[in-house]
Structures are given as C-alpha cells and as structure tokens.
C-alpha cells in the first residue's frame, strides 16, 4: 500500500510537471538548440545563447492567442475595473524616480550609477511586461487614468493606452536599456549625467506616448527635447554643439506653432462649452470649419513632420545622427522620431479629420518622392556610414508616413509595425556603426573593406540587420513594408487616383534601399582586406553581443509571427479609422460647433464622431 501510495503521490506530484513539460517543450527545444548549435563558443556564451533562444520562444508563446482563453473571455468579459489602475503612471515615473536616485548617487561610484540605471530600466521593463496582461479592448482605452491637475484651466493629468501606443511603449522600454547598456561600453566620462539624461528621456518619451491631455502632452514633448539636446551636445562628435542647437531649433520652431494651435483650440472650446479643457476627448467633440481646421492642422502637422522628419524639414536629422553618441542615435532613431508619426495619428488626424484627409494625398506624394526615393538616393551617395543610416531613416519613415496617409487598416497597422521595425533595425544599425567607430574612430566607407574576415560575428549580425532593413521576407522589415505598400495600393478613398503610383514609387524605394544597404555591406565587409589598420580588429565584445541579441531576436520574432504583433493594434486601429472616415465624410460645419458629451454609460468610446 505504501509503495502504491508513494507511486500515486509521485504521479500526482509529477502531473503538473508533465503538464508543464507538455506545454513548454518548444521553449526547452529552443534552449537546447541554442546550446548545441554554435560549436566554437565557450560554455558561458552557449548558455546565454540558450537563454536568449528560450526566452524568444517563451515570448512568442505568451503572446500567442490561446484559443481556450479567447473563448473564455468572449463569454465572460472582465467586468471589474482594470487590473493595474496605476500602471501607466508607474511607467512614466519609474524612470523619473530612478533619475532622482541617480542624482543622489556619488559621481565617483560609476558602478553604482550604472547599476541604479540598469535596475531602473529593468523595473520599467517589468512594468511593461505587465502591460501584456491588460485586456485588449476594441475601440476603447485599455488603461486610463485621469486626475485634475490645474482645474481652473481645465488641465488634467489624463493618460491612457491603446493599441496605437502599446507597441511603441514596449519599443521604448526595450530599446532604452539596450542603448544605455551599449553606451556604458564606450562612454567613460560623466556617466552620472549621462544616466540621468537617459532616464529623464525615457520618462518623457513614455509620457508623450500616453498623454491624452494636450497640455500634458506638450510638457512631455518639450521635456523630451532637453535630455536629447544634452546627449548630442555633451557626448557627441566634433560638431556636436552645432548639431545639438540645430536639432533644438528645428523641433522648437515646430512645437511653438503647435502650442499656438493648442491654445486656439482650447479657447474655442471654452467659448462654446463655457469651461476650458485641454483634454483630447473633449476637444475632439469640437467641429470646426474647414478653413480653421486647415490652419490648426498645419500647426500640429508641422511640429510632427519636423520630428518624423519629412522632406523638406528633414535636414536636422543627418547632422544630429552623425554627431550624436551611439546611444543617443539609437534612441533618437528608434523612439524619438516615432513620436512624430504617433502624434500625427493621435492628434493631427484625431482632431482635424477634414484637413488631415484633404492634405493626406498631397503629403503622401511628398512622403514617397521626398522621403522614400529622395532619402534613398541621398543614402546611396554617402561615404559616412552613419550618415547613410540617417538618410535611410528618412527613407524608412517615408513608408511609415505613406501608410498613415493612406489610412486604411492594413496600411495603418503596417505603419505602426514599421515604426517598431525601424526602431529595431535602425537602432541595431546605429549600434553596429558605433561598434566599428569605437574600434577605428572613423566612419568612412573607404577606410574599410574585407573586415568580415577579422570580424565574422559582426559581419553576420550586420547582414541580418541589413536584411531586416531592406525588408527581406522572414524579417520584420518585410511585413511592415508589405502592409504599407499593399495598403497604399488599395487606398482609392484617401489617396485618390494617385494611390497606385505612390505604391509603385514606394516599391521602387525598396529596391533603392537594397541598393544602398548592399553596396555599403559589400564595400565594408567583403573584398580584399587591404587596409593594414583593419587587420587586427577585435570581434564583438560580450557587452555588444548582449545588446544586440534582443534586437536580432525581435527581428525574427516579428518577421515570422507578425500576427502576434498586429492583433493587439487591430483592436484600436480599425475603430480609429472607422471613426476618422465617418468624421471626414460628414461635411465640415460652417461655424464651430460642439457635439454633446458622450453618455457615461456608452462612454468609453474614445472618439465620438462629430455630427
């Protein structure tokens, strides 16, 4: 009996283990493959490969829509309040608190400063992981917080999250630690200031991604500017001060016009509703005549398009990128530019549907000719690798903007996905450029050649990232560009008769992209290794490999399992486009009118169409 009991007990004890094994075999298999496949590496490195592979698979599995769970949720929708009521505020304030801690850490204790920074960013990453547990809600905010801030001016601390901003926040939380981690390898002066600036930057970036109150958004938008200005100006290259001031002036000029437009809106709202409000949801109820919409839209759009940046206001970008330190370039390309396109969707299109629709087709033409093609042609002629990557950013952001202007679900999802893609692949490219710059202190293409022989791992990673950047099937770039181009091709409603030719133009841009990226790859990595200075370049260090690993993982994760990433967006993008279309199809009113406030019961529908 005892033995039987014991066996039964064992079986009982083993049952969850077996269930776990049955459920998690892909993770274990991936881990094993990661450990066994690379042959020449040492044990520790294999271990980390295994961990990285296992985590990738785990990540995808966690995101994979579970059939049973979906059915369960469809039957019984979560009735209680949100699971994490203050999660968004934590996302904003964890980095801010961390920066305050850094401020009070002794300057000489560089290890402690680094530790505090990385721990803060890890906490931020953990908080971001909780976001995945927030239920996806169609056409509503997934999470929302609203507190009065300055009641007499109608200013609220109103932050919210939906499928449009969700992946961008994840991108921010993932890429900021990568940028900081790799910077700690190359930056040795004033680490404390550097960490402080980076943490403030992270807080401000997340803040502008979730701010729904226009005043709060403006504050966050400006708060983002100063740390970036410092990052470029202090740790940058030779012409850093000039580049920093150029960056600052361009962005500032745009945001001043936006501020004027915001104030105009608020006063118009006040004259109709009696009380002022900076809340996007309130201001969206404002129906404006077309002429007013056009001016206001111009103010908003200019601020955002400078940030994107779109031709012809892109000229600050190559300078800023070339002069910025590696970490600054990564975060500038990966997140800061995205705030322009995000702001265009959320505020430009959300507030001024008629004007945005009218301007869409023209701007799409500019995005194709001035962004995608002109950016690619400029990139083709660059000798400085970093400048080349900067111009490739201009070109890639052209796709993002084209997708937004085309404004159908496919293109819009493609745009948002392409924002994430560009963040990952261009971030990785800047990181890789930083790697060779640290070794040789030059970025001239002519100085290199054949270095794949001395830096094989580096070359391999570069080629993978290049493929992602030019959109090879199987990598993330392909999915985004495909969605954007096909979306633009089908968008007769918004882009009009030119939609198809613009899609063709964008496709030409893909070819040009392959041309410049492959040319530089060929010149730098292949051919004879004839420069004696390159003969003994060390390969990727451990620090650099660790920084690159998550990016490589994400390239394939998005490339192979795109649905996992587009599904959460879809829940917000489709209703957004629906309400946008409904708004611009209705004629613009002759005089400013205010639609009634939505009923609180039906209330959470974010964007009530203006009748």
């Amino acid at each position, binding site marked *: 009996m005892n033995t039987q009991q014991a066996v039964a007990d064992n079986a009982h004890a083993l049952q969850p283990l077996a269930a776990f094994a049955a459920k998690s075999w892909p993770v274990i298999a991936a881990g094993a493959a990661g450990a066994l496949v690379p042959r020449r590496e040492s044990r520790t490195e294999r271990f980390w490969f295994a961990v990285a592979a296992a985590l990738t698979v785990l990540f995808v599995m966690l995101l994979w829509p579970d059939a049973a769970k979906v059915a369960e949720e469809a039957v019984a929708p979560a009735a209680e309040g949100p699971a994490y009521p203050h999660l968004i505020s934590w996302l904003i304030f964890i980095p801010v608190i961390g920066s305050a801690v850094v401020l009070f850490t002794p300057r000489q204790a560089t290890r402690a400063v680094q530790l505090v920074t990385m721990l803060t960013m890890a906490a931020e990453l953990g908080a971001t992981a909780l976001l995945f547990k927030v239920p996806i809600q169609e056409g509503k905010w997934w999470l929302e917080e609203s507190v009065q801030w300055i009641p*007499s001016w109608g200013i609220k601390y109103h932050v919210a999250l939906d499928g449009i901003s969700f992946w961008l926040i994840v991108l921010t939380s993932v890429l900021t630690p990568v940028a900081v981690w790799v910077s700690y390898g190359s930056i040795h002066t004033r680490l404390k*200031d550097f960490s402080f600036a980076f943490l403030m930057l992270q807080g401000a970036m997340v803040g502008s991604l979730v701010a729904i109150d226009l005043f709060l958004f403006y504050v966050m938008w400006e708060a983002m500017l100063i740390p970036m200005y410092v990052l470029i100006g202090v740790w940058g290259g030779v012409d850093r*001060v000039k580049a920093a*001031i150029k960056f600052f002036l361009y962005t500032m000029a745009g945001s001043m016009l936006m501020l004027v437009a915001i104030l105009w809106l608020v006063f118009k709202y006040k004259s109709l509703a009696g009380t002022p409000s900076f809340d996007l949801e309130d201001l969206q109820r404002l129906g404006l005549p077309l002429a007013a919409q056009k001016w206001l839209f111009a103010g908003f759009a200019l601020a955002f398009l400078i940030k994107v940046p779109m031709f012809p206001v892109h000229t600050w970008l190559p300078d800023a990128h070339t002069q910025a330190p590696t970490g600054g370039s990564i975060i500038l390309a990966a997140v800061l530019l995205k705030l322009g396109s995000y702001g265009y969707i959320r505020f430009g299109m959300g507030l001024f549907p008629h004007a945005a629709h009218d301007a869409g087709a023209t701007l799409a033409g500019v995005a194709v000719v001035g962004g995608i093609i002109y950016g690619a042609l400029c990139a083709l002629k660059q000798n400085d690798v970093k400048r080349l990557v900067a111009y490739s950013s201009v070109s890639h952001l052209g796709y993002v903007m084209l997708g937004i202007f085309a404004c159908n679900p496919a293109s819009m999802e493609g745009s948002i996905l392409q924002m994430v893609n560009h963040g990952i692949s261009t971030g990785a490219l800047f990181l890789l450029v930083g790697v060779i710059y640290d070794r040789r202190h030059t970025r001239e293409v002519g100085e290199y050649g054949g270095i794949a022989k001395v830096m094989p791992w580096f070359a391999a990673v570069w080629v993978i990232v290049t493929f992602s950047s030019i959109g090879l099937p199987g990598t993330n770039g392909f999915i985004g560009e495909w969605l954007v181009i096909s979306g633009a091709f089908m968008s007769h409603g918004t882009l009009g008769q030119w939609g198809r030719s613009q899609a063709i133009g964008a496709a030409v841009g893909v070819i040009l992209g392959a041309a410049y990226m492959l040319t530089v790859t060929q010149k730098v990595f292949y051919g004879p290794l004839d420069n004696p200075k390159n003969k003994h370049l060390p390969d990727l260090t451990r620090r650099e490999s660790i920084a690159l690993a998550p990016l490589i993982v994400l390239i394939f994760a998005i490339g192979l399992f795109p649905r996992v990433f587009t599904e959460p967006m879809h829940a917000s993008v489709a209703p957004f486009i629906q309400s946008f279309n409904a708004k611009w199809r209705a004629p613009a009113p002759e005089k400013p009118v205010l639609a009634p406030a939505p009923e609180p019961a039906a209330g959470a529908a974010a964007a009530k169409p203006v009748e």
Partner: protein
Amino acid sequence: MSIWFALSPLLILTFGVLGLMLADAFSKRHSDLALGSFITFFGAGLMAIGLWIMGGVPAEVAAKVAPWIILDKFTLFFTATLCLGGAISSLLAGGYLPEHDLDRGEFYALMLLSAIGAVLLAAAGEILALFIGLETMSLGVYAMTAFRRTNPRSAEGALKYFLLGSFAAALMLYGGALLYGATGTTTLVGIRDALTGGQFGSLRDPSRLPTVVLSMVFILVGLAFKISAVPFHMWTPDAYQGAPTPATAFMSVVVKGAALATMMRVMLVAFGDKASASWSSGWPPVVAGLAIATMVVANLIAIRQENVKRMLAYSSIAHAGYLLVGLVAAWGQGDPAVAAEGRAALLFYILQYTVTTAGAFGALILCGSRGREAVTYEGLSGLGRRHPAAALAAYYYLRVLVHLYMREPAPGAPQAIPMRSGYVYAALLISAALLLYFGIMPGRSLEMAVAAAKSLG
C-alpha cells in the same frame, strides 16, 4: 483688525532696516546682517501671507489709509512676491559681498529701504504716494549699483542709471501734475471717475483731453523706463553689468515687479476707462508695440552677448516685453472675463519670474569666486565637469548650458572658479524648491493670483 496689523509688512521692513543699521554700527561680522535682512524680508512676507489667509484686510480698516495706500489682495500678493525676491537677493548678498571684498553693512540697509519703496509703490493708489514709493525704491538701487567702488563699470552704470532714472521720474511727475490739472484729483480711482462717463468723460472741459493724453504718455514712458522696455532700456545692460550681482538680482526681480504692479494699477485703474483703454485711441496699441519691440530687440541682442551678466540683463529686458504682453492681455479688450484671466496670468507670471530670475543670478554668483568671477561664456567652459554643483545654472539658461557642459576651456583663458557659501546654497535651494513647487503644483498659487487679480480695480 487694527490698522497697525494691516500695515505690518511695511512696518516690519521699516523697523527691520532701522534695527539692521544699528546692528551694523556695532557688529564686526557683516555677513550676519544678511541673515537679519533675510529674516526681515521673511517676516514681512509671512505677515502678508498671514493677512491673506485671514481673508485680507477688512474694508473699514483699509479705508483708514485709502486712497493713498490700498490694502487689497493685489497689494498683499505683490508684497509677498517682492519680499520673496528681496529675501533671496539678501541671501545672495550674504555670500557674494564677503567673497568679493565688498562686505559693508550699508548694502543690506539700502536693499531693505529700497524694498520699502517697492512695497509702497505696489500699494500706492495715489500719484504722490506712488512717486514717493518710486523715488524711495530708486535711490536705494542707484547706490547699490555703485557699490563696487573700485570698478569703473559700476560707477558708469550707476551714473547712467541715476541720470536716466531721474529723467524718467521727472517725466512721470510731470505727467502726474498734468493729470491733476486736467482732472483735479491725484487718486487713481478719482482719475478714473473723472475720465469715465460720456464721450469725453465727466471732464468739465473737453479741451483738457489733450492734456490727459499727454500725461498718459509721460506716465507710460516713466514706467516703461522702470521696467526697462525697449526703447527705454539703454541703461539696463550697463547698470546690470556694473552692479554687484545680488543688486542686479534685486533690480531685475523687485524693482521690475514693483514697477509692474504700479503699471497695472495706473493703466488698468486710472486709465481703465473706455476711451483710454481702447484699441483705437488709448494705450493698449502703444503697450503692445512696446512689447513686440522689447521682445524682439532684447532677445536678438542677447544672442550676441559674450558677457554672461550682460546676456542676463538683455534676457531680463526681454522678460519686460512678456510682462507688457500680459498687460495688454490684462486689459482684455474690455471684456471683464478675459481681463480677469489676463490679470491672473500676469500675476502668476511675475511670481514665476521672481523665482527663476533670482535663481539664475544665484547660479551665476555661485560660479565665481574672488578674482575668478564668471564674466564671459568662455570663463564658464567646462565648469560642468570641474564643479558639477555650480552647474545648476544649466537648468536656467540654455547657452550657458552649452558652455558649462559641452565646451572644453581654451588653454590659458581665464576660468571661473565657483565659490562656497551657505547663503548662496540656501538661496538656490529655496528658489529651486519653489520652482519645482510652482511648476508641478501650480494650482494653489494660481488661485491666489486669480483672487489677487479680482481685487484690482
């Protein structure tokens, strides 16, 4: 409430300065006087806030000194703001004067006396009281400007300031005299009553109208001089550069604040009638023009400055332009709702301006020790690396930021070495804490500004 209690901020300042002068005669260490001066300012400010919390001065008490001194919430707000500026300036002086070998007790007495004038100016509801306040304030500041006696720039700046200031005061006095001639009264409310009603007001004789306009121009010029609006700003860079830095801070905060208060009273109360305050025939277009000229010219010149203190002077001129914009907004096209908002915003702005500007000058003071003062940008180069605490200035002014952090000092160039002083640290901490408080939680101070604005006129 007794009238003495209602007047307590002014009385504290007055008796404080008398006590301080006595203490100066018998004390050996003058830097302790800074603490005394700070406590005087602090006490006066505290009394103003206390009166505010008690609901302001009751009308029957205030009537005892009206119309010469008006004890409304507007006055209390400005008293507290001016005392805040004065308190920070006196702390800065406590660090600056011993460091630069200027440690003489008169400085604090002059500062307090000048502040009495400033508070009186902000409270004045009658042209003669206004003039007395103006002169009391100005004379102290003239002397403070000339305080660096060995420095020719200081003497030059003081002389320029004195001559032009006297000229402006004379213009104002002349304007007041003309106004008295035209309306028969010197109280601000009386002037408004004389000007309102009917096409030409109740002026018995419409032919006096040109006199009113002329007096308005004279008074406007005199006040524009005091807040250093372009084109009456010529004295400002020299005086600001020549004066010891705490005096500069005092000038740009307290003097400007008091001048703004009286400008609001004169323009919005005395000249608040429909004809004077109108876009077609009154002062708003003139003030708007002054504002635009001031902002554009001052900012453009500020960009080209090499001397940090001079840059701050031009920046302070530019702020006068912003204040004038606020003044036009405070008129609000005659719409009371809009005007109330504009006035509240202007009051809130002067509070922020006080804290920020005092902090900026404090940072500049901290950046220079004896003989190694922060004079030019080049002198500040690389300071952020050598003395991070002193680089607090970075948070205030952008171009300084570039030099503090982003440039390496040129070899052999004179470099600023920061000083150490508990007084300066304290001043910077106070202004930084207030800055954060007003920036993050503006609700309460904004409500106070709204209430103060409501009590005007």
